[in-house]
């Protein structure tokens, strides 16, 4: 896939929001695209919510702060409520429906519900809901090839934690199959 893709990932601190963004950004880089990754920082992170802007483009990236996302990943209710209105018409919202019971209220965007946290739990992959969501996002958008996505994942895991690669791969596959 080519063209610009602006992604906003949001949820609680500790859900792996920033890591998910990093995998997407690295996949973009491995695919030869321009990429940027911008986290929220400071008290809003410590107070519970974290979000992360990722831009993928074939051109030089202007503002790295995603204010009108093509894709919104919402992993908690405050994030869905805060950012739902910002998504571009025709955009995609992916919701972790294990955590958020509310439905997307807009009709001009595509809403996808993934029971990510429950799927993670029942497969012994607690804490990997983010990768399940990522797998599903990959399937919905095709923002890169499967091979490139895996390369992005490998690049994102520090060498000291390489034993986590297997579980992350498994979770991404569960997301693709969800």
């Amino acid at each position, binding site marked *: 896939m080519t063209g610009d893709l602006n992604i906003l990932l949001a949820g609680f601190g500790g859900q792996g929001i920033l890591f998910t963004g990093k995998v997407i950004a*690295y996949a973009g880089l491995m695919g030869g695209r321009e*990429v*940027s990754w911008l986290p929220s920082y*400071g008290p809003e992170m410590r107070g519970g919510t974290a979000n992360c802007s990722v831009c993928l483009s074939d051109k030089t990236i*202007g*503002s790295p*702060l995603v204010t*009108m996302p093509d894709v919104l990943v919402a992993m908690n209710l405050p994030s869905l409520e805060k950012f739902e209105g910002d998504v571009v018409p025709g955009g995609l919202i992916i919701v972790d429906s294990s955590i958020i019971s509310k439905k997307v209220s807009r009709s001009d965007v595509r809403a996808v519900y993934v029971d990510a946290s429950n799927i993670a739990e029942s497969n012994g992959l607690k804490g990997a809901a983010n990768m399940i969501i990522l797998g599903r996002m990959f399937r919905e958008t095709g923002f890169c090839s499967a091979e490139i996505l895996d390369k992005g994942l490998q690049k994102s895991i520090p060498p000291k934690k390489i034993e986590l690669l297997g579980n992350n791969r498994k979770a991404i596959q569960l997301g693709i199959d969800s």
Partner: protein
Amino acid sequence: MGEKVLMKGNEAIAEAAIAAGCRHFFGYPITPQTEVAAYMSKRMPKIGGVYLQGESEVASINMVLGAGAAGVRVMTSTSSPGISLMAEGISYIAGSDVPCLIVNVQRGGPGLGGIQPSQADYYQATKASGHGDFQMLVFAPSTVQEMVDLVAGAFELGDKYRMPAMILSDGMLGQMMEPVELPEKRENPEDNKPWAASGHQNKRGHNVINSLYIDPHELERLVVERYKKYDAIKETEQRAEEYLADDAEIIIVAFGASSRVSRSAVDMARKQGIKAGLVRPITLWPFPEKFLAKHAGHAKVFLSVEMSMGQMVDDVKLAINCSRPVEFFGRTGGVIPTPKEVLEQIVRLNGGGYRCR
């Protein structure tokens, strides 16, 4: 040059400084700059360098003065309130003709302000970094790769002109990750500093590094000499990037984070058929007057877009000799403007709705 890696701006600054041969870092933690110091604390001990957290910013900048006087490549980094604390030391460094690198990852002010990105230290960096008649070289990167490139350049030019150089970054550029290619490692940048107080081994006289001159005529002579150097720098070291500026009727002037937002807005305006362009100062001192003056003929209006209350506006007016209206749009306090907001200003100006004449 190796493979591209994703790095945070703050980490990239640190790694670029190490690659440029910097082995001395003195600093004190403050958000959103702390990753620079944290990175240095991990790396310096492994490569035979010095990482030292001073008891305060005041101590740290004076350690920079000491190390710089001994002729080594030295740096510190902090965020806005920290620069205020360092002001005295920066003035001493300038008054002693000692090169060093100072990084300011700006946050909202005044006072303790906030911790979100800001550009409200423009005046401080370019006009009054401390007391007395002096200037610093000030560089404003807008991408993580440019941070890397400008760190090396800032060290080089600081050494060349024997003066402090600043990288004026902000919380957004410091915290974001982008692909970077790191430069080849450079060794022994300390060579060729015959002025340094690095030990004379009875082979030459003492080198004295000092900023105290009791005789006003002697002090005046030194300051005037320094200003001749500043004039030469203004002539040769101005740098800016021009984007779609050659035929532009509306020229945005913006640096750092706000220049990226502005670039997006320019693209949006061009899609609507509005002739907008961008001049992005890379050096804030010397201010790139030449790059602005050359567009004053065809531009109808200039728009300074900043994350402050408009601290750069006067410099833009002076650069074009007030020959065109210079308008301002900014957000401050840690708020980042959106491309849409900047586009609205461009559309307003395209309709001729100037606030100033």
